[in-house]
């Protein structure tokens, strides 16, 4: 490894000549696409807290699996999916007032479970007494750890999740935006919500293997939040969220390869920068756009719609 030069083509070629980097990029791309898409709906459904919890629940799973001599991937998937099912079984927002309120009651329960999960994970790491870098790897991710088998498992899980997400499609959006009307129209709101939580668990488990449990949000929430600033169209927003997630992952992995600092830091920082840029863009557009459109707005506000035509 010769270090970073100004010849970008040569740099990328060098980076790709390492098998572990190739695997990191493959895994990163799969995870970014999955998190970008599922994260967009998670933000729309305001389930960021549940998503965060699922990511944290993966940590004791992976630590426990390491302790027992199993693969960390198994621990992540097992615990995240089990966690998703538990959250889905919790009594949700009791009174559905048009799906416009948060689930305040269950958030305390989720928070309690989250603290316990972190504690268990720490216990498992202590019991394992292995090399110390394992802990930071599990919490903050590492670039070197992705095996061929892991990539294959990620690909299978990712493709399956995206397929199910596409099948859920419109009813999922309907239930997220307007649960009560969706229910009246025959959408099985509860079932769709549970299915989405399982998808969220799978995405969190996959992303944990790249970014670590604590930085999953860099891919799950930040690109989606940035996309939400840029557009209010659901289809376009989802694609934009995926594009941002993939870009920050590629760039972050590339920079991590040439720098002494960990991948989790770079991906998170780049995602944060993307969010700030999107926020700035929207503020600028709102200010500039509203002063321009100000002249045509007041008219329709009062007119009794339709009654005059």
């Amino acid at each position, binding site marked *: 490894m010769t270090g970073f030069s100004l010849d970008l083509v040569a740099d990328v070629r060098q980076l790709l000549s390492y098998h572990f980097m190739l695997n990191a990029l493959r895994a990163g791309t799969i995870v970014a696409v999955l998190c970008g898409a599922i994260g967009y709906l998670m933000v*729309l459904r*305001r389930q960021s807290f549940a998503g965060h919890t699922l990511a944290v629940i993966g940590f004791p799973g992976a630590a426990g699996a390491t302790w027992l001599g199993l693969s960390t991937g198994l621990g992540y998937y097992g615990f995240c999916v089990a966690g998703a099912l538990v959250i889905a079984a919790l009594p949700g927002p009791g*009174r559905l*007032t*048009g799906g*416009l*309120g948060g689930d305040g009651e269950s958030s305390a329960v989720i928070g309690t479970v989250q603290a316990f999960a972190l504690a268990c994970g720490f216990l498992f790491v202590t019991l394992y007494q292995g090399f110390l870098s394992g802990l930071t790897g599990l919490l903050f991710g590492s670039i070197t750890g992705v095996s061929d088998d892991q990539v294959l498992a990620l690909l299978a899980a990712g493709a399956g999740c995206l397929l199910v997400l*596409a*099948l*859920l*499609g*419109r*009813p999922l*959006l*309907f239930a997220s*935006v*307007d649960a*009560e*009307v*969706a*229910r*009246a*129209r*025959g*959408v099985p709101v509860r079932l769709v919500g549970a299915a989405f939580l399982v998808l969220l668990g799978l995405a969190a488990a996959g992303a944990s293997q790249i970014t670590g449990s604590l930085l999953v949000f860099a891919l799950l929430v930040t690109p989606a939040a940035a996309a*939400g*600033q840029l*557009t*209010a*169209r*659901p*289809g376009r*927003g989802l694609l934009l969220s995926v594009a941002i997630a993939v870009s920050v992952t590629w760039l972050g992995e590339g920079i991590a390869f040439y720098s002494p600092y960990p991948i989790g830091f770079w991906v998170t920082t780049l995602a944060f920068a993307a969010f700030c840029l999107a926020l700035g863009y929207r503020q600028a557009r709102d200010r500039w756009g509203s002063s321009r459109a100000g002249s*045509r*707005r007041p*008219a*329709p*506000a*009062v*007119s*009794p*719609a*339709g*009654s005059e*035509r």
Partner: protein
Amino acid sequence: MSGQPAAEPAGPEEVLALDGVAVTAGGRLIFSDVSLRVRAGEFVAVLGPNGVGKSTLLKAMLGLQPTSAGTIRVLGAAPGRNNSSIGYLPQRRAFDPAMRIRGTDVVRLGWDGDRWGVALPGRRSRQARDRVREAIALVGAEDYADRPIGQLSGGEQQRLLIAQALIRRPRLLVLDEPLDSLDVSNQSAVSALVQQVCRSAGVAVLLVAHDVNPILPYLDQVIYLAHGGAVMGPPEQVITSDTLSMLYGTAVDVLRDRTGRLVVVGQPDSHAEHRR
């Protein structure tokens, strides 16, 4: 009654028929012995004190709330069977200001939001877009339909939600307190809009209201729901000082203004606080 077909005039068909309906929820009797008939193209208000089960009655008609007695027929079938021919607007507060989805998309969900999968481009999708545009034009929301719905005013959101309820050309429109949280000018504008839809498209409208005054000029029938039962009839018969005072158990006056319009005064819940 059975031997006199003439007693049931061959007018518009019956869209809603309830006979002796009772609902019990959580071991508590919400209401009982509610019977009513709504015909195509009628504008009907459901009135009554807070907590008497007006929203529950609507949910029972949609099959979302089980009943403990009586029969309900909606568009000639059991409740829940014909919900795709019913436009439903539940009682609600406003959308979260952070909700980043356009009004157009919310209206579109009313068209094909219950179909599995994602919408693929093509003829079907173009038809859907045209129908969305029609529904938005019908409620006069063209100017703001493409803005994020969370940033719109209550009246603007309400119009877009009515467009969502209307998009499949329903035969029955069920609106739960659509005038709540609107200012006075928007209350009368939305009432006029609902009445216009009711008249021009022959849609039967069932509207739950807190305050009868904004809709009073448009009503064909009034259902007063009170503990124990319901009274149904044309507004001039039901909205009298005697009937209302009896139903509410407190003195309610019905007056006529200079134009001959009925005004209800002293109705306990007309500007009462919300119970949630």
